[in-house]
């Protein structure tokens, strides 16, 4: 079994490589990696949920938009999530439900402010063990 994700340095910024047995799991692990940059997902209780429906022109762009949606919710509503159920995923559409709670200073560690998921060096590919995605965040 591979790890869910890895984090790597990229000059002034930071990148993640998310793994998954299937494409849905890659999207879910990428989201988990994102919240591991923002806070400690282990400390996030699943007391509320949000449904997502995102559509885009292709799967790579969809991945970036999915992560940007989560970054937006953290900034706009201070929501942090720790579980991501990807219900449906096609070439250009995503349906998901995310579980988490409101960010509480003291309870949750504030690790890093994330501006956006970028298109730089973006990669989503299939390998022998499943799928792998690389995303760089502007921080």
């Amino acid at each position, binding site marked *: 079994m591979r790890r869910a994700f890895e984090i790597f340095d990229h*000059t002034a910024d930071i990148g993640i490589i998310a793994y998954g047995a299937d494409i849905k799991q890659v999207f879910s692990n990428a989201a988990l990696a994102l919240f591991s940059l923002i806070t400690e997902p282990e400390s996030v209780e699943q007391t509320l949920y949000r449904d997502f429906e995102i559509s885009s022109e292709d799967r790579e762009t969809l991945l970036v938009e999915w992560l940007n949606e989560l970054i937006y919710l953290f900034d*706009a509503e201070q929501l942090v999530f720790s579980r991501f159920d990807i219900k449906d995923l096609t070439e250009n559409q995503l349906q998901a439900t995310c579980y988490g709670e409101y960010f509480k200073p003291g309870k949750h560690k504030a690790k890093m402010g994330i501006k956006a998921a970028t298109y*730089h060096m973006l990669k989503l590919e299939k390998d022998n063990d499943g799928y792998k995605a690389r995303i760089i965040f502007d921080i």
Partner: protein
Amino acid sequence: MARWQGRIIKVDDYRWKIPQDYKEGMRVPGLIYATEEMLESIREEQTPEQVANVAFLPGIVGYSFAMPDIHWGYGFPIGGVAAMDIDGGVVSPGGVGYDINCGVRLLRTGLTAEDVCPRITQLIDELFRNIPSGVGSEGKIKVDQKEMARIMVEGARWAVKRGFGYEEDIEVTEEGGCLTGADPSKVSDKAIKRGMPQIGTLGSGNHFLEIEVVEEIFDPEVARVMGINEVGQVLILIHTGSRGFGHQVCTDYLHVMEQATAKYAIRLPDRQLACAPLASKEGRDYLAAMACAANYAWANRQCIAHWARESFAKVFGKSPEQLGIRQIYDVAHNIAKTEEHTFNGRQLTVCVHRKGATRAFPPGHKDVPQCYRKIGQPVLIPGDMGRCSFVAVGTARAMSETFGSTCHGAGRVLSRGAAKRSVRGREVVEELQRKGIVIKAESISSLAEEASEAYKDVTEIVEAVHQAGISRKIVKSKPIGVIKG
């Protein structure tokens, strides 16, 4: 990242040219301002390649410029300057960056180090309490959607109207703290919702507020015009931008521009350079939304400056007026602006992209406030936490050569992760304390990312632009207290 092996030609000790034929598709050459030593470190990343890539953009005039503090950025390098002809040129959100109108505001005080040092801990504590900072922090100003629309259109003036600061602050702010052409209908609901809780917050990352002491004055006559009279005088420097609001505007429009790039059949070597003609709907919409974010940033710095004044007043038991706290200037470091320039004898209207670069207009320019018309526009160049900052002024040479632009700061040399591995946050605090600098931060561990070792030496950067003649150094100051997110 692999070392850049491309061809570069020495113009003089401070100028290096990437010839136009380096890469097929470049419309102009690249021009990097740096010493030979700096160029070596610039080559370590693929940054010169990014300078060459920017030269692909339609309508670019003269050169794709890079300042000595350049480092790798998305699409454009940070420290990049590019002027696009209004006729046939493009605008690129990547040429402005995610943090639209990230910038610097500098205040002077009538206090000296002797007055402030004994109370520096108390002062930093008070500033930290009074100015919201850090990841996930919410501001103390509650605004609704209607109020947000006013912030987007009025900029710093919105804050002054609400009692944060004075009319005279606006006079000494680039663009009067308000870029024209802002249209809130071009901004997404998401950006507005992301911006609402964050107005009046310092943020995280490399943003900070610093109490500084004047260490050296290079030109006393010019310094005096800015109200800087002696070594030991205390200054207040604020470095922040448009927060999540600007990030969302950039994110939204990168997507719009991706489609525009295909629609207008623009050939680009990097996806993050996505752009649209200045005259197109997409281009105009971005500029209208970007102006909203720029104005939000000016309102943000206006609020923070007000709380800084309040904090000083509380600690010293005197009014800000009695303490002589007045604004010197406020500059944008990440912005695209329509300006009139003369280049190679040709009069042009251009959209100047400055990404991690500062406007540096010369003495006599109509956009320099009356009080500085004789000395040129103040240029504010912060260093990293432990070292020093500079005040410079714009020059005629910058005007004729770089579309009135110069450097913006230190520029990263170590990744955040590498900085963290080389030094711990706690050690950074101790090192700063040894230097007599008091620091208070929301996240101690993130301090390591901003350690001095992670940045180029700002003194060398400023020396390079001074020697190149694209700005003139006037004052050097060093920090005695810092608050950070």
